[in-house]
């Protein structure tokens, strides 16, 4: 418990374009900057005028009622959907015209709400897919077992085990990913995303289906990951203990629009947010 760095430890500082980032990141370029991001599906604005800035080592939360468009935002950031309006900058680089693969190479990695592991492959192989672009040897070196193959495979194996050790999963390396228990599958998704060496990690409901104890562990691990890899994390989560416990900046989405931004305390006291979650209170 004590090692969890609570949000109150971090001082948030406003930056231009109506966003706030942790004080420690203020001198560094933001890892993600979305400006006026929006997408329409058949005339319906699923996300509209979405603006966010995330600091270099910030843990940020994206919350909102069901159907608010949170996963759509993730899909826009990772270029699964091409936005109808607005831009996304990753590490200051415009992602216009990029596809999902290029967005990943630019430094953005994600997990999925409905787990998407490579079920017929082992845990280690799943992580190795994440390491794919950091290991360089071609098809023919692979087939004809050139020296590069042996060297890189060994390196990849060590790296994979190293990453798995974050969640103490080294012993499961040879287990088929599809046969893992639910919580372990979620953790493996995080490891696999980390393996792509991102500067921003998007977690889509990482605590879904976990018990309070597992959630507590996950919170510690998210902070551990941030500290160890010096990356930013943006997470979607319905578990308010997790969000309020570790997120430094929080962004609330409703009907595809941002209705509030701020620190945990600010969000908790924001009447607009309370209304979005609980409905309008009858006037007394």
């Amino acid at each position, binding site marked *: 418990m004590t090692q969890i760095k609570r949000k109150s430890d971090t001082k948030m500082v406003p930056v231009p374009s109506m966003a706030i980032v942790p004080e420690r990141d203020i001198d560094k370029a933001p890892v993600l900057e979305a400006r006026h991001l929006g997408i329409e599906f058949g005339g319906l604005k699923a996300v509209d005028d979405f603006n966010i800035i995330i600091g270099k080592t910030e843990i940020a939360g994206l919350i909102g009622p069901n159907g608010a468009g949170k996963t759509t935002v993730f899909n826009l950031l990772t270029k*699964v959907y091409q936005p109808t309006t607005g831009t996304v900058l990753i590490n200051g680089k415009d992602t216009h015209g990029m*596809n999902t*693969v290029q967005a*990943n190479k630019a430094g953005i990695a994600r997990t999925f709400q409905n787990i998407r592991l490579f079920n*017929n492959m082992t845990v280690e192989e799943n992580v190795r*897919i994440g390491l*794919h*672009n950091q290991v360089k040897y071609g*098809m023919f070196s*692979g087939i004809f077992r050139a020296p590069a193959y042996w060297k890189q495979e060994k390196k990849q194996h060590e790296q994979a085990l190293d990453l798995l050790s974050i969640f103490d999963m080294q012993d499961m390396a040879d287990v088929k990913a599809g046969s893992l228990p639910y919580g372990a599958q979620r953790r493996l998704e995080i490891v696999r995303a980390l393996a792509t060496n991102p500067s921003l990690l998007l977690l889509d409901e990482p605590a879904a289906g976990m018990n309070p104890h597992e959630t507590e562990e996950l919170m510690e691990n998210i902070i551990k990951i941030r500290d160890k890899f010096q990356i930013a994390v943006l997470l979607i989560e319905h578990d308010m203990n997790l969000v309020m416990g570790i997120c430094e900046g929080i962004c609330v989405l409703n009907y595809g629009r941002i209705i509030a931004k701020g620190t945990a305390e600010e969000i908790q006291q924001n009447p607009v947010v309370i209304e979005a979650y609980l409905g309008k209170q009858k006037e007394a």
Partner: protein
Amino acid sequence: MKMSKKFRSNLLTYGLVIVAFILCQLAVEKVIPGFKMSRSLKGQLVPICVYIVMAVSLNLTVGISGELSLGHAGFMSVGAFSGIVMSAWLVNAFQLENETIRLILAMVTGGVFAGVAGVLIGIPVLRLRGDYLAIVTLAFGEIIRNVMNCLYFSLDGPTLHVGFNNPNLPGKLVVNGPTGATGVDTISTFVMGFVLILFTLFVVLNLINSRSGRAIMAIRDNRIAAESMGINVTKYKMMAFVTSAVLAGMAGALYGLNYSTVTATKFRFDTSILVLVFVVLGGIGNIRGSIIAATVLTILPEVLRAFSDYRMLVYAIVLIVVMLATNSPLLTGLVERIRPKKKTAAKEGEAQ
């Protein structure tokens, strides 16, 4: 050793092929008295090798890459005719009579041309998904067969002439449109077939256990996740598809040079389906299974000549039953219930 399980499995596959080859050679050479092979079976040795390579290469597309291809025989066809032309041209142009070298060069040629066809077909096809991809590969298989029916090749000394819908070419016709290739110098041998199988296994198994192979399987398991991990989907789908086409082309050359007459109708849709049956019965994604299924199902009709009328009917029923047994929730539940008993029984047996 970390990879020991896979390594052992691969070793077993190679071992199986090598032992089977040695046994066949012993039977052919009649080294051991009484252990010999019937003439009709001897005639099946090269086709068996061809079908094993076809099945293993199709398994790369269907099982490893997860794309149903119904036009695999098209690549075999391209390989067969380009191989035949190459073999004849080598004799005319270089007076090269050494059959082994000619066969190897013919197989390489077959592989290259089938690979080119694979690239040309793969570019449009691999953008599609699922059933659409299947039907378009079928369409391409038919287009290849149609085009082959219109192609004429002739050799005038060392010069090669090509005609489209035009049989009036100078010199001696090697490939004669719908009549196909006639008077082919049959240089295929069982030994070379065996070598081709080993080569195919080497390529496919090593590919699977490499960075590229893992990317191919990741796309099969979950395309969207693979993309978000930075895997270039088109590149790796293409890699599997073209590798598969090259191997099928090499098998095609071996097949084409095994008969004195080869027509394009031999590489119809039926042949594609036959190879698919091998893959399905051997277990989708299971390389060793493909080898066994291709061997057994090529020999079986020879053994069961009396039932030849029912052969395709039985194939059809087996195909349906296997698919139902492995995919229907009702039947898989039943199988699951039987299986653990078997396993525990085996363990008890070991203990005693």
